[in-house]
């Protein structure tokens, strides 16, 4: 979906302020993110003690053989949830793309390389201005695709080590230890990536709650998605909102 302009009245002190907001994520997308967030969180928390079974802290968590079993069951349950969300996500979005009702904003293009170069110049003090972005900047696209590919790898390798016997009816046995190594290493890579990269960009750089409430404010749009902002304003030029004139407090 495109960012859609929405105008909301907000009570602020004595006067009424008009605030424009821009829809960024649909309710469905927000639910998907929440499910991914929770299931990946559970998977990491239940996966690490299994990976580090040799370590004492992990053995404290695993306290009884039954606990080890239940941690494994929770891990498998969360994996099923994530798998279903993933399948829905890919299927639904492919359908929308084919129906041409979803703009291909998330796919990387040449602009992203230009923007990344511009950003590096900015970060190294060779340039005063950050690049201007469309709906998703290159950092956000990188986040999406990195996590997308990682979760695909985790899903495939996870299923292989979950069902080793049926898998080896079809594939060579060597895929089992290879998948185990990949699953257990990729998990750490993902955790590190989320903790450093994603947490910084959505919490520390600026608190970006759009994935939870679905919208960005006009200021946020102007500052972080200038190209998209201008495009939307141009699109909406001919349709002035009825409430756009300021209204005095009653």
């Amino acid at each position, binding site marked *: 979906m495109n960012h859609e302009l929405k105008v909301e009245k907000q009570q602020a002190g004595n006067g009424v302020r008009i605030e424009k907001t821009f829809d960024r994520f649909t309710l469905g997308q927000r639910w998907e993110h929440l499910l991914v967030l929770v299931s990946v969180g559970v998977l990491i928390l239940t996966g690490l003690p299994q990976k580090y079974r040799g370590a004492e802290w992990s053995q404290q968590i695993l306290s009884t053989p039954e606990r080890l079993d239940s941690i494994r069951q929770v891990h498998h349950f969360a994996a099923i949830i994530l798998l279903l969300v993933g399948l829905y996500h890919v299927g639904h979005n492919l359908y929308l793309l084919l129906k041409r009702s979803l703009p291909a904003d998330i796919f990387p293009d040449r602009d992203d390389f230009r923007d990344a170069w511009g950003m590096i110049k900015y970060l190294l003090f060779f340039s005063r201005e950050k690049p201007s972005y469309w709906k998703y900047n290159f950092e956000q696209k990188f986040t999406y695709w990195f996590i997308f590919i990682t979760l695909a790898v985790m899903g495939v390798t996870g299923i292989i080590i979950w069902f080793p016997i049926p898998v080896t009816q079809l594939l060579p046995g060597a895929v089992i230890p290879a998948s185990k190594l990949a699953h257990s290493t990729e998990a750490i890579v993902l955790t590190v990536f989320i903790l*450093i990269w994603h947490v*910084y960009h959505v919490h520390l750089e600026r608190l970006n709650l759009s994935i939870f409430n679905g919208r960005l404010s006009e200021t946020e749009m102007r500052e972080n998605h200038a190209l998209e902002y201008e495009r939307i304003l141009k699109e909406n030029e001919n349709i002035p909102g009825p409430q756009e004139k300021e209204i005095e407090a009653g």
Partner: protein
Amino acid sequence: MEMFDGLKTRKFKITATAFALLIAGILLLALPVGIAEAEQKKQETEHYCLSCHGDPDLNMELADGETLSLYISPGTMESSVHSQAGIECEACHTEIKSYPHPEIEYRNKRELSRSYYLACRKCHSANYEKTLDSIHADVAEAGDMDSPVCTDCHGAHSVQALDQPRSVVSTTCGSCHEKVFDQYSDSVHGGALMDEDNQDVPLCTNCHGVHNISDPGSPQFHTSSPDLCAGCHADTELMEKYGLSSNVYDLYELSWHGVDVAVYKAMWPTIRHESAVCTDCHGIHNMLSAQDPNSMVHPDNLLNTCQKCHPDAGPNWTSAWTGHHEISFERTPYLFYVEQFYLTFSRLVLWLSIAYVGLQLLRSIVNRARRVSQ
């Protein structure tokens, strides 16, 4: 010592050393004389007792009808370690002080052995205490009077050093544990012991302990058994001698089975687990070289061995097992590529994230500082 100067200290040391050498010399000279004297003087009682008990026909009937031979072979007796050390008959037979002897009240020979062996305790109390913790003691307590006591393994009047040759230990155990002994004798360990008097291969006691032999069927024994194997198989010098790898144990510990067992070992040693330890795949007493066509882990038999725990495993299954080998391109190409990929990829992701986020953080701090100063 601070008061003495260096010279004096050295003189004192020289004098002390000379004195010590002198004493040692006297002792060394005196020692064989002392032993020779002991051999000549002592064992008077022994000779006296053997004047009757040296008769091969001397015997008596016990209450249960068993015939107890009272014959002690003088040759065996004299060559026993106790006789050689000057220990006399009455050291063990404390109740016999004169002739005629007090009446024997034991109903049968076994009862006699099980009571008389307590004499060992007088001198060998530490080892006696250990036997009380052994499975042999547990079995006896449960009512099995055939369970061995000291004399069953060491002999009574014929006590000899048990390790000349080494195989004496294993054959001693084998006199009761016949089936296990047969398997052991055919194994790579037992074979080398019996055929070439190998000094490195384990005897029964190296794995099971000597006097405090524990229950090998217990979960603890199963869980900690890889440590027993590691005692030799993680010893690089020893393994090189036989052209074997000494990091099999370390690699096992990293394996699926090994990690699983590690948790049990650390947390729940008394709970039985299903993960394989060394002996589950290699066999216990019948363990063979992995190259031996009869070995449980020989490529031809490996699937069968896996199927003991993984009954549905198909023919591809065995190649999932990396066989205590380190990751290598030749042996495990899939693993090799995955490892190589992640060696680069993990570091790349980590350092790129840190570098990029670090630069962003720096830039935003500089921006803020500039805004404040303006």
